[in-house]
């Protein structure tokens, strides 16, 4: 090899109980390069990086840093070997200041004060060198995700990391923020530092990386120079077969307005508007896509529409009638014909320790079909899910299995079956394909289109622009709690550079007037 390897992994294997997350992974990352890793949800990328960072311990395999075999049993050892990591889910303490967070584990003495002064100086230096400016005294919990990510990167750099792992850093960034990040990565590379960069976005891989590896089902299936590959080849490698990136659907035939939001405002616990004066309409027979970077108020908007979050101002109209405050709760709104596929099925959509059949009646458990009067008939709820399992190809088709024992995709199908089989007039679908394999994605997409064609009003919230563009007849974009724009996608939108660029600007909060 012409360039020395900063990191070499050989034969890494890791299982979590029944899940084989990494299988015999071998990977070499050249020093002073940016190495991309792509793969579907659950392919094992984060697990592999956590092993490298000493957060998990591999069941088998060897790690070499700069050519020497090392044992990384804890994050402390990883840090000592110059490895820094920015986790997919930030490892920050919200109630502490930026300075405290950066210092944690690198305090430089038994008393905080002395180390703090040194770290302040270092932070200022790093801020100048990489454009990573953060107020060291701000509480981390008060920062936006973009700034929080900066704190994570600063944590690694302050510890003198020469090898930086970034796990899906751009998922939470607007396109301009992402560009800034890439600029910084470039600086690091020029200084001879090594970067491992995980993402789902093939565009980014092509843009910034020197080499790329593709993971599928725990294995590395492809490693190549970035210059020698194409997005299509990477996609095929990720999924293991040819991918249809479009959804088969005919033209929409929009009907009357089913749901209207007027000046909706939702406040967070600290009084900040998470959803700020948002108005739009959903029509029957149309899929509306709500695009935006994660954490810009989409989740809150969805929950407000579903009656879960209180609204501070504005009103919701269903079929032309204002939903009174007394009916603004999940139960009443459901009876008005609204179905809600929540963004986070674990947290909200399902009850993990319950039998699947019991999870599958959540929210419709008062339906007379499931028993007389106050009684709940087990027979009928089991029969009901058994029927849905057949229709949605849920595996294993056993309604009495514990919900937690189904795979993610199948859990999602249970939620979808529950919400869609009620024949609702309006469907709110939050991240309907998150963590779901490609086969299930196609199934779910075709279901949503079928609902549209059956005259339902459908709202799809997704952070995947590709998904929005494949499904939506109407696109709304949110940024910082506000609607920054509404667009009708042109034919073949996904390949329309100008249109995609336009959406990107809207996601970054650049509205028409400003543009």
């Amino acid at each position, binding site marked *: 090899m012409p360039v020395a390897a900063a990191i070499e992994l050989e034969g890494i294997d890791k299982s979590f109980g029944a899940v084989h997350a990494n299988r015999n992974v071998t990977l070499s990352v050249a020093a002073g390069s940016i190495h991309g890793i792509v793969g579907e949800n659950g392919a094992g990328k984060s697990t592999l990086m956590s092993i490298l960072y000493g957060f998990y311990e591999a069941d088998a395999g060897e790690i070499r840093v700069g050519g020497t075999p090392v044992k990384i049993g804890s994050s402390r050892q990883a840090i000592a070997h110059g490895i820094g990591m920015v986790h997919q889910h930030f490892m920050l303490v919200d109630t502490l200041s930026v300075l405290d967070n950066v210092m*944690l*584990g690198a305090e430089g003495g038994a008393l905080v004060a002395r180390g703090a002064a040194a770290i302040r100086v270092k932070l200022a230096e790093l801020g100048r060198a990489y454009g990573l400016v953060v107020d060291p005294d701000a509480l981390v919990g008060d920062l936006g995700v973009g700034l929080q990510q900066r704190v994570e990167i600063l944590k690694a750099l302050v510890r003198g990391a020469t090898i930086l792992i970034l796990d899906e850093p751009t998922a939470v960034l607007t396109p301009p923020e992402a560009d800034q990040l890439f600029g910084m990565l470039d600086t690091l590379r020029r200084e001879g530092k090594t970067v491992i960069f995980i993402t789902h976005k093939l565009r980014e891989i092509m843009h910034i990386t020197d080499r790329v590896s593709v993971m599928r089902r725990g294995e590395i299936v492809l490693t190549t120079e970035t210059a020698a590959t194409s997005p299509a080849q990477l996609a095929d490698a990720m999924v293991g077969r040819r991918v249809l990136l479009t959804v088969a659907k005919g033209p929409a035939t929009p009907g009357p307005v089913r749901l209207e939001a007027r000046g909706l405002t939702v406040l967070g616990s600290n009084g900040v508007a998470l959803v700020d004066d948002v108005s739009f309409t959903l029509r029957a027979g149309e899929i509306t896509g709500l695009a935006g970077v994660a954490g810009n108020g989409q989740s809150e908007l969805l929950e407000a529409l579903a009656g879960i979050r209180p609204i501070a101002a504005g009103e919701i109209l269903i079929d032309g009638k204002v939903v009174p405050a007394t009916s603004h709760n999940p139960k009443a709104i459901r009876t008005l014909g609204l179905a809600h596929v929540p963004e986070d099925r674990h947290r909200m959509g399902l009850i993990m320790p319950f039998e699947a059949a019991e999870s599958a009646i959540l929210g419709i458990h008062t339906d007379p079909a499931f028993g007389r009067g106050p009684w709940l008939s087990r027979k009928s709820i089991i029969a009901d899910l058994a029927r849905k399992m057949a229709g949605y190809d849920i595996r294993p088709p056993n309604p009495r299995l514990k919900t937690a024992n189904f795979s993610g995709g199948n859990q999602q199908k249970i939620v979808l079956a529950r919400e869609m089989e009620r024949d609702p007039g309006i469907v709110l679908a939050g991240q309907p394909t998150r963590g779901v394999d490609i086969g299930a994605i196609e199934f779910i997409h075709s279901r949503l289109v079928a609902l549209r064609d059956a005259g339902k009003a459908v709202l799809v919230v997704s952070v995947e622009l590709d998904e929005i563009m494949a499904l939506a007849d109407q696109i709304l974009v949110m940024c910082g709690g506000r609607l920054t724009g509404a667009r009708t996608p042109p034919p073949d939108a996904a390949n329309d550079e100008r249109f995609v660029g336009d959406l990107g600007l809207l996601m970054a909060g650049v509205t028409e007037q400003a543009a």
Partner: protein
Amino acid sequence: MLTGLASDTALILASSLRLAVPLIFACIAGLWSERSGVVDIGLEGKMLVAAFASAVVAYQVDSAWAGLAAGILASVALGLVHGFAVIDQRGNQIVSGAAINLVAAGLTALLGNAWYGEGGRTPQLDSVASRFHEIPWPGEASLGAIPVLGPFYSNLLAGHVVLTYLAILLVPLTSFVLYRTRFGLRLRATGENPAAVDTAGISVRGLRYAGVVICGVLCGFAGTYLSVAQAASFLPSMTAGKGFIALAALVFSKWRPWPALFTCLLFGFLDAISIRLQGAVIPGVGEVPVQAIQALPYLLTVILLAGFVGRAIPPKASGIPYVKER
């Protein structure tokens, strides 16, 4: 008149302080544990065990200090059981705490009865060396005669047992360690987000055990104060719910040391006032029933919890076992 009022006030405050001391130790003990992420409703049990062990050893060895050491050891031992159950075995923290309270209540009375045959009571600590005594301050009598300020000097400042002064000193010490040292920073972070601590290369387990051990040590002081300083022997269930009051105080104070001190003093004051108020005649109402006075601290706790502190937000990760791999 003014001097009389000052003297009364000083006396009530001194009584408040005496009654608050075990609460302060226990409350700060709970603070250390919960700040590290381990909820501890077993404060009561640890105090009880410490009260027992210290009374037994102080009597047998004829040394209050040996009693204190024994109280601390016993309390820490029980704390380690809790630590093992909830840190290593990831057991439910509330349940483990409840178990510790039961074990402590049963074992102390059982052993006390088996050893001394007096229904669980330990022998009276009659010798001078076996008890903590109130430390006289210079010129207590003469300075005490100074109008208005005198009584505060001679009653409130002077003449407490050494543990009382330690309890007060504990607060700035806790505040300093918690907010100004590396250890404190790490401990606070562990209670909020153990994963962040772990990825920073620090042992969550070690910090949580540290929190639990400090908690044990301080409960040891609390229990020893009860049996070796305040009373002069151990009696079954002599903690009488102080561990729970300390927990309530911890919630009020939102897990911060100085507010914890003031809350404990407030509870001590309520207790002291209820003692003074007994038999007092309130115009129009007549004599206040004992029961009403005695219910006051409990009632106030409920009312304060329900209304005035607002939602007290505990350390985010407290009560949750740290599990790396789901």
